[in-house]
């Protein structure tokens, strides 16, 4: 089996390091929330509302007297789960379609890519609103909508990369040895398009986090009592003058998560894309 070797550069790009750091922070907090949060995130004590930050409530309490830190932690977990599942589903289907298009060529390729173009033209939010109008709003619907809009993105990346790999000598050798198109796709093409797909996946992860926040903001994502950064933001809106911290913290969390994954994706592209490497040299 032949592989394009990715050379690990001597000095890692700064964006990669910052990105990795932020991602580690968010993922770490999300993982921690599985076993521990300072308080029960859903426990309400209305008489304790709008508490300032102190030793008991590290970032204070919200309009229903719930601990903000605990909510942010569980919301991080929800956000990561949605993004992960959506990108995995959208990525798997998209890459499979891209490989299929590239392997078969001809009208199949044209058909898949034109359908993907139509998918691109479809606004993601509109699609999510449509789905939740039919099935009722839920986190599952949000995941489905985000996964769906990811399919054409991955299909396009996978096909473009695969088309390049198909022209290489080791693929020609495999064909000469009598391997079928699907076997070659699986054994030779897929491993060699992994780098751009992973880079795209990381960037799409950031997009998915933002999309989840937007859907929850509109009330189409996580339903109460399951916390979500987007819903926390929308609930904080009328309280901006009374308790601005309610909007600032979830907003910061979204920024950190999205920035982290974007920088990580950028950094990964910098070290895996040979064209960029040459330019830097």
């Amino acid at each position: 089996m032949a592989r394009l070797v990715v050379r690990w550069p001597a000095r890692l790009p700064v964006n990669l390091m910052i990105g990795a750091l932020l991602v580690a922070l968010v993922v770490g907090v999300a993982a921690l929330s599985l076993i521990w949060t300072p308080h029960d995130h859903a426990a309400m004590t209305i008489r304790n509302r709008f508490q300032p930050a102190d030793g008991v409530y590290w970032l204070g309490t919200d309009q229903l007297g719930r601990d903000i830190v605990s909510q942010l932690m569980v919301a991080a977990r929800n956000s990561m789960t949605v993004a992960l599942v959506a990108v995995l589903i959208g990525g798997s289907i998209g890459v499979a379609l891209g490989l299929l298009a590239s392997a078969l060529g001809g009208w199949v390729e044209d058909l898949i890519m034109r359908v993907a173009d139509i998918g691109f033209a479809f606004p993601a939010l509109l699609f999510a609103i449509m789905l939740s109008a039919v099935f009722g709003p839920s986190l599952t619907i949000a995941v489905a909508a985000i996964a769906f809009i990811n399919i054409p993105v991955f299909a396009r990346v996978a096909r473009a990369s695969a088309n390049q790999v198909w022209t290489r000598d080791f693929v020609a050798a495999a064909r000469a040895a009598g391997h079928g198109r699907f076997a070659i796709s699986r054994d030779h093409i897929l491993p060699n398009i992994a780098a751009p797909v992973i880079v795209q996946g990381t960037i799409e992860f950031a997009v998915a986090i933002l999309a989840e926040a937007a859907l929850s903001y509109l009330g189409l994502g996580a339903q109460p009592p399951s916390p979500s950064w987007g819903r926390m933001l929308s609930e904080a809106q009328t309280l901006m003058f009374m308790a601005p911290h309610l909007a600032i913290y979830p907003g910061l969390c979204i920024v950190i998560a999205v920035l982290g994954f974007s920088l990580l994706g950028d950094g990964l592209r910098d070290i895996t894309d040979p064209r960029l490497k040459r330019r830097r040299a």
Partner: protein
Amino acid sequence: MYFRPAYALMAATALALAAPLPALAQARISIGIQQEPTSLDPTTDATAAINVMLTQNLYEGLTTVDQSGAVIPQLAESWTISDDSLTYVFNLVQGVTFHDGSPFSAADVVFSFERARAEDSGNPRRATFAPIESIAALDDHTVEIVLNNPDAFFLFDLAQGPASIVSEASAETNGTRPVGTGAFRFDAWTRGDRLRMIRNPDHRNADSVAMEVIEFRFISEPAAATAALMAGELDAFPGFPAPELVAQFEADPRFNVMVSSTEGEVILAMNNSREPFTDINFRRAISHAIDREEIIEGAMYGFGIPIGSFYPPHGPAHVDLTDRYALDHDAARALIAESGFDGRELVMRLPPFPYATRSGEIIQAQLAAVGLNVRIENVEWGFWLDEVFRNRNYDFSIIAHTSPNDLGNFARGPSYFYGYEDEAFVDLWNAIRTETDDDTRLEMLRQAQIHLADQAVHGFLFQLPAIGIFRQGVEGFWPSQPVLQLPLTEIAIN
């Protein structure tokens, strides 16, 4: 220096634009409203916003209600009631025309009421017409209505939107192009955005109406409502959805804030026709699990009076039943166990109004404390009307019943969205309706409240407050809401 005259001209123009128009009162008003109806016909649709926007303004009834809640003449200029309280003769106002130009006469009254009381009518308050034996036009301007039995609420009910007088020519299209006899006529309805009415110059009181253009803007989102008020896009928001911002608006000299009570009882509706709500133990368990104080503080920031049954606290027959079920988790758990509930997930479908969605989240947590697993679904108004109100496809919901005198809802039988069947209450309600002695009737109304609290038909939460935010200078809105209407004929902006 060539540029000077140009500058002077610009400055003059700017001054002219900036200067306030001398003594020319504003003749158009933009009013924010939370709920957008799916139809504009109050005789076929129960949506409260139809009555708020159109009753008394676009549609008129034989009678109407003033701001003290007293019945006063509208399309009937006077009436006589026979000694046995069974025969009503209405003398109609003459020279009235509908907005489409057709003249209003006794035939329109007969048509409207016959249509409303027909077996297959979609009238949301058909009970209004149930006691009617016959309706006859004695001449073009006199209508005689004979009842089967005395009805204490008949004249009051005729003042409500579902008893609006419509013309046969336009009855079918009133849902989208409403035609009435009121002081304002329909101009345009941009769905999802606004409804516009303009002054009807042919109306008998047109000279005393100050507003030329009325614009209702549909804004259910509290943040958007606030932004629209702050930006000066709205002159008034009579049913403002964000109680947490009252203090902020009170401190702002550009606005007046009016807080009053309404006829709206907010209930945690339970689908009584469905397991486990068929069991009174389970319903009582819910009443034991609910902490009204926490809901009112948490969702309404203290605005709202707790209710223990289905009757407004400011009403003459009110009994305080808020202590009927003490907040008691152990009692609630015991009653749930007794009901043999299988522990399935219960669905709470909430309409898109902040009082409902916010209370819902708190109640969800309160019910979780007694071991109930409730899933919240926030749905659109049209979906709520179809699935909850018409198809009774829900376990819990939260809704304000804003019609006055609506205890009769519990006598509507299992086809109403409560799914509640109670022969004893139907008898009691019929007795209340036909009782002509005021004191006896008030006593029976008290019994009715106690009966419903005993049966724990729903979770009775609080009386919906009316929080009105008005731009400084806007005058003429009612300070209290004896009926769910927003008469605009006396509005003035200075």
